[in-house]
């Protein structure tokens, strides 16, 4: 087996919560709290979780928009956890990002041509003629007409803007693209166009994706493996087929059961999860899911379960599973 492209181990991102006159850190928001995973070249890892579980923060740590407060990130064998911006720059070609709202991530005052040309200028690649040609190529790859280059982002619909965001992300032939909720702002019929495009691009350019989203059905559709996050930690990870058929962690099970199924014959009696997600500033003791868990036992509030393998590539962090396994 080839070496993993991305290796994240025990990653932590604790944001200080500053209060008072001298803005001392009174507490820490444990947005990402000890997360480990790998992504192989050409593979998609889906990362699912509800708002505030730390999935976007994790994505931003990997692109080094944030510097993690603990753990390590290795990309293609190199430790990039604390790399300085100057040494990081060449690596930025290899790790790109697609954001949720393309209207906010595209400069409204630049033409689409300028937006797509910028990565080449920043990284000093090609001359003007070559760059313009490459922009036309990129537009063609993502299914936009070449004349789009002279237009501004506001002239496009949401789905087309996301295509522009994708074109910019793949401009420098990256090896890893972090997709942070790339389709959640889009209508269903447009969403499927973008998902198909992402799958096509992956096949064509051997891209690896970290696909972050709250919609398990969408994530399962595009991913080889899926990791479920809850309150800054991964609670279960498995190949996407396995995850759906043999979901083991009580949180994953309730997450799957909560998804409304587009089939009126299956108005399922579901186990509705009670309560809200606790605050990551003051997480519960023991297993962070225990206050909402329908199967919690006394020990769940005492000791924190680690991510333990169940079978093959399937692992879950739950005391109840460790016993039976």
């Amino acid at each position, binding site marked *: 087996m080839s070496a993993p492209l991305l290796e994240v181990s025990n990653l932590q991102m604790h944001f200080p919560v500053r209060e008072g006159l001298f803005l001392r850190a009174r507490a820490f928001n444990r947005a990402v709290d000890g997360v480990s995973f790998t992504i192989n070249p050409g593979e998609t890892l889906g990362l699912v979780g509800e708002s505030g579980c730390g999935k976007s923060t994790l994505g931003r740590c990997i692109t080094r928009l944030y510097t993690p407060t603990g753990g390590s990130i290795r990309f293609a064998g190199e430790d990039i956890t604390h790399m300085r911006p100057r040494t990081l720059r060449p690596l930025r070609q290899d790790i790109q990002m697609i954001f949720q709202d393309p209207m906010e991530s595209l400069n409204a005052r630049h033409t689409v041509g300028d937006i797509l040309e910028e990565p080449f200028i920043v990284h000093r690649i090609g001359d003007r003629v070559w760059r313009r040609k490459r922009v036309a190529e990129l537009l063609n790859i993502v299914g936009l007409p070449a004349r789009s280059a002279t237009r501004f982002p506001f002239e496009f619909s949401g789905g087309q803007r996301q295509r522009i965001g994708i074109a910019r992300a793949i401009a420098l032939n990256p090896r890893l693209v972090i997709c942070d909720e790339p389709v959640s702002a889009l209508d269903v019929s447009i969403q499927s166009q973008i998902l198909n495009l992402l799958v096509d691009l992956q096949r064509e350019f051997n891209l690896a994706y970290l696909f972050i989203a709250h919609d398990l059905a969408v994530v399962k559709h595009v991913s080889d493996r899926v990791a479920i996050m809850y309150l800054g930690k991964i609670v279960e990870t498995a190949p996407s087929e396995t995850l759906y058929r043999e979901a083991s962690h009580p949180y994953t099970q309730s997450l799957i059961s909560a998804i409304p199924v*587009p089939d009126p014959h299956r108005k399922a009696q579901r186990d509705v999860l009670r309560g809200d997600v606790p605050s990551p500033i003051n997480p519960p003791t023991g297993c962070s899911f225990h206050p909402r868990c329908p199967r919690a036992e006394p020990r769940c509030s005492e000791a924190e379960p680690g991510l333990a393998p169940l079978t093959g590539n399937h692992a879950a962090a739950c005391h109840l599973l460790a016993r039976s396994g």
Partner: protein
Amino acid sequence: MALLEVDQLITEFATDEGLVRAVDGVSFTVEAGATLGIVGESGCGKSVTALSIMRLLPQPMGRIAGGSLRFQGTDLARLDIPAMQKIRGRRIGMVFQEPMTALNPVHTIGRQLTEGMLLHKVCEPANALRAAADMLDRVGIPSPDLRLGEYPHQLSGGMRQRVVIAMALACEPDLLIADEPTTALDVTIQAQILELIADLQKRMGMAVIMITHDLGVIAETCEQVVVMYAGKVAEQGSVFDIFDRPAHPYTRGLLASIPRLETEAKSRLGVIEGMVPGLRDLPLGCRFENRCTFAVDRCREQLPAPEQVAAGHAVSCLRWQEL
């Protein structure tokens, strides 16, 4: 008699570039106690339909330009403002997508909850807070008496939406219009809220209009479904008609484009090529014509009228029988 009969509703907006018809000849009925879903993508007119029924169109740009909205025998489209105010919030309640914008940040939960009850005189001022606490309890908010004195920012998103639902239901309306009530919420919280609405509906016997873009929510909650596209009804029928025997190419396209948990990973999803036409340059014929794989010349020229597929199932497509 149906609780609400919407007949040929036309809603227009005056914009800088002229008159825009956001809703164009929409008809449907809601029976007492039943749930009707309106599904469609952004800009299809589903929310404008709801705002028309509530007579809450943005003023002075929006107006009902035609058709009727018969609610318990009264045409809401022709009511004057004081008469409409007696119905809005009393007989028809509404829940909006974003609970934070539906709540006033500077008033306590208690004040916002009792406002409607006092205005519509459904309870004595002395008992209002008691009734408000009861209502919070019914929507599943723990320690309701404490919550009455709190402000919206002190609650989580799911709790805020519960408060908004409590406000909409405080006067025990006959019809609840829920416009994307769970879109801003996480899936586990969405499940809680949908269960809550269904439960309260059963207990209070009210009808619900559920407006959403999520076909899963429609399948889960509705008996009747209206599929809207670019201001018109593309297809309507029972939830089984729509999911088992969709007749309109748009409905079929929508159903094919949703990723489901059962579909094979990385398989190709169905797509509807292109995008919704702008309301300023609508095609002459069928509004779906430019994206429809079955469109022929007459689709470009002739506007399809609703045709009956079976009892209670109607489709607006010239070629539905050939497909």
